[in-house]
C-alpha cells in the first residue's frame, strides 16, 4: 500500500518540480522515488498479507514480486529517457509524471482483490498510455498510434466491463474470494451468464495483452509511438497485463478451467503463429520487435493455460527475462535511431566493428529473446514449457518449440547485420553514460539469471 501511495504522490511532486523549472532534479527524484517505492514493497515481503480496505487490495508476495519487477523496469526505461523527451517538447516533467501515473495503475493491477480495482487500475494505465503514445504531436505516425490505441483500448475496456458486470450478475459480488466461492459452491449449475462473463473478460484482457486475434492495434501503435514509450508498453505494461490475467484466473476461475482452457489454448497457438510468422517479413527492427512481443504474449499465456501452483513463478521468470532483453533492444534502437534516423535492419550493419559494446549487449538480448541456453530467456521458456508438459499439453509445447525455432531466424537477422554486413561509412556511436549503465546492467542480469536461475525462480 505504501508503494502505491508513494507512486501516486511522486508524479505530483514531479509536476511541481516542472512548475519551478527544476529540470535537472526530475530524473534523480524519479529514480530515487521509484527505488524507495520498490524498497517499501520488498519490506512487506514477510508480512503475511491480508486483504485491506474492505477486501479491495491484497499485497501478497505475488503482488510484491510483480510490483518490484515493473518498478525496476520503469527505472531502467526512465534512465534511457535522459535527453529523449527534451527533444520532443519543453514539458518534460509532465511526461515523467504521466509515466508514473501509469505505473500507479499497474501497481493497482497487480495487487487488486476486487474487480472494481482491476478496472480502475487498467483504466489508469491505459489512459496514461494513450497520451504517451501521442506525445509527438507533429508526427502523423504518433497521432495515428495514439488515436488507434485509444479507440481499440476503449473498445476492449467495454468488453472487460461487460464481463465484470455479468460476473457480478451471476455471483453477486466483485470480490475475488466471493466469486471463487460462487464457482465452488455451484459445481454443476453455474449460470450461463457467468460463462459469458468469463469469455468477455478473456477478450478484454487479451486486447490489453496484445494476444491474437486481438492484436491488430499492436504493430501500428508500437511503431508509431516514440521508442521509449514503446519500450514501456512492451515490457512493463505487458507484464502487468499478464499478472492481472493470472491473478484473476488463478484466484477465481481455477475450478472451471475445463470451460475456458480450450479457448485460451486456441488463442495461445494462434498468437504464437501470427506473431512469429509475421515477424519474419518485417524490414523494420521496431516493427519486428512489435510482432515478437505478440509472440511473447503467447508464451506468457502458457502459464494460464497450464494453470497450477507454479504458474506465478514461471510468469515472473519469463516476464523478467523478456522485459530486460526488450529494454536492451529498445535502448540500442534509440541510439541507432538518433544516429541514422531509421530503424531498418540495414541501419545495424557494421555495428559490431564500430561499437563492439552495443553489438555484444544487443546480441545477448536477441539470444535471450530467442531462448538460447545460458540466457534468462531460455530459463523463462523452460519454466513455461515444463509447466505445460506437467499438465499434459504436449501438442502445445511442440507448437511452441516450432515457433521458437522460427523466431531464431529473425532474431539472428540483427546479429548477422551487426557482425557480417559491413558498411564503409559507419561512424562509432557515442554511448551516453546512462545508456551504458542500463545496457550493461541488463545484459549482466540476463546472463546471471540464465546461469543461476535460482536467484529469482522460487520467489513467489
Amino acid at each position, binding site marked *: 500500500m505504501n508503494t502505491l501511495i508513494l507512486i501516486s504522490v511522486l508524479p505530483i511532486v514531479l509536476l511541481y518540480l516542472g512548475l519551478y523549472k527544476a529540470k535537472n532534479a526530475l530524473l534523480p527524484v524519479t529514480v530515487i522515488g521509484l527505488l524507495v517505492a520498490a524498497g517499501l514493497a520488498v519490506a512487506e515481503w514477510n508480512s503475511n498479507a491480508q486483504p485491506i480496505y*474492505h477486501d479491495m487490495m491484497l499485497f501478497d508476495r505475488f503482488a510484491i514480486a510483480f510490483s518490484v519487477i515493473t518498478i525496476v523496469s520503469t527505472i531502467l526505461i526512465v534512465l534511457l529517457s535522459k535527453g529523449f523527451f527534451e527533444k*520532443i517538447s*519543453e514539458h518534460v516533467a509532465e511526461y515523467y509524471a504521466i509515466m508514473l*501515473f501509469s505505473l500507479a495503475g499497474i501497481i*493497482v493491477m497487480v495487487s487488486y482483490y476486487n474487480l472494481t480495482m482491476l478496472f480502475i487500475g487498467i483504466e*489508469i494505465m491505459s489512459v496514461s498510455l494513450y*497520451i504517451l503514445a501521442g506525445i509527438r504531436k507533429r508526427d502523423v505516425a504518433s497521432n495515428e498510434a495514439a488515436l488507434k490505441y485509444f479507440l481499440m483500448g476503449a473498445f476492449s475496456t467495454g468488453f472487460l466491463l461487460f464481463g465484470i458486470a455479468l460476473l457480478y450478475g451471476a455471483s453477486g459480488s466483485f470480490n475475488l474470494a466471493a466469486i471463487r466461492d460462487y464457482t465452488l459452491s455451484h459445481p454443476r449449475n453455474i449460470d450461463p451468464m457467468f460463462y459469458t462473463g468469463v469469455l468477455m473478460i478473456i477478450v478484454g484482457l487479451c486486447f490489453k495483452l496484445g494476444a491474437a486475434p486481438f492484436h491488430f492495434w499492436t504493430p501500428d501503435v508500437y511503431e508509431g509511438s516514440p521508442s521509449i514509450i514503446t519500450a514501456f508498453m512492451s515490457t512493463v505494461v505487458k507484464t502487468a497485463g499478464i499478472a492481472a490475467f493470472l491473478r484473476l484466473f488463478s484466484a477465481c476461475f481455477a475450478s472451471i478451467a475445463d470451460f475456458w482452457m480450450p479457448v485460451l489454448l486456441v488463442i495461445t497457438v494462434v498468437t504464437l503463429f501470427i506473431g512469429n510468422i509475421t515477424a519474419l517479413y518485417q524490414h523494420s527492427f521496431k516493427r519486428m520487435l512489435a510482432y515478437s512481443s505478440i509472440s511473447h504474449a503467447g508464451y506468457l499465456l502458457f502459464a494460464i493455460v497450464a494453470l497450477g501452483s507454479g504458474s506465478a513463478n514461471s510468469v515472473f521468470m519469463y516476464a523478467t527475462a523478456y522485459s530486460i532483453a526488450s529494454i536492451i533492444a529498445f535502448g540500442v534502437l534509440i541510439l541507432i535511431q538518433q544516429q541514422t534516423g531509421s530503424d531498418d535492419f540495414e541501419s545495424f550493419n557494421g555495428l559490431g566493428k564500430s561499437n563492439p559494446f552495443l553489438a555484444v549487449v544487443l546480441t545477448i538480448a536477441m539470444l535471450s529473446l530467442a531462448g538460447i541456453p545460458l540466457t534468462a530467456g531460455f530459463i523463462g521458456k523452460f519454466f513455461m514449457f515444463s509447466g505445460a508438459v506437467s499438465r499434459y499439453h504436449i501438442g502445445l509445447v511442440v507448437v511452441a518449440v516450432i515457433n521458437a525455432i522460427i523466431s531464431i531466424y529473425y532474431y539472428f537477422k540483427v546479429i548477422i547485420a551487426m557482425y557480417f554486413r559491413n558498411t564503409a561509412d559507419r561512424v562509432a556511436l557515442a554511448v551516453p553514460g546512462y545508456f551504458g549503465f542500463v545496457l550493461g546492467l541488463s545484459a549482466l542480469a540476463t546472463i546471471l539469471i540464465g546461469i543461476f536461475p535460482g536467484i529469482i525462480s522460487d520467489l513467489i
Partner: protein
Amino acid sequence: MSTFYFIAFLSIFFSLLVIFAKNPVHSVLYLILTFFTFTIHYILLNAQFLAVVNFIVYMGAIMVLFLFVMMLLNLNKETEPGKHYLAKLAGVIAGGCLLVTLVGSLKAYKLSAPVILHDPNLGLVKNLGKVLFSEFLLPFEISSVLLLSAMVGAVLLAKKEPRATA
C-alpha cells in the same frame, strides 16, 4: 403499468427513428430523445441516481459532444462512402445471427419469478453514497489518479508548443 408501456413504446419508436433518419444530425437528436426515455425508465424503477447521471452525462454531455462532432465532420450524402456489397452481406449475416441467438435464448428461458427488492430505496443517492464512502472508498479515491492523469494529459496534448520543429 400503462406508463411503462407508453415509455417503452416511445423508446423503441425513437431508436428506430435513429436508424432510419437520413440526416445524421437528426439521428443524433433522436438518440437524445431515446436516452431521455431511458431516464424516465430509471425514475419509474426508483433508481434516482442512475436517472440523474443518465440525464446529465449521456443526454447532456456525451450526446451534445456527438452533435458537435457530427457538425464539424460535415457528414452528408456525398462524403459518405458507398457501402460495399460484401459489407452489406456481412451485416445481414451478423444481424441474422444476433436475431437467432436472441430468439433462441428467449425460447430457452422460462419466465422467472418477479424480482423483489429487499430495499425498495436501493437506487437512492443516499444509499449509493453510503456504499461509496465505506466499502468502495479505495476505488473512489484511486479514481482521482485516473482523472488527474487524464487532465494533465489533455492539457499536455492541447497546449501549443513554442517551437515549430518537433
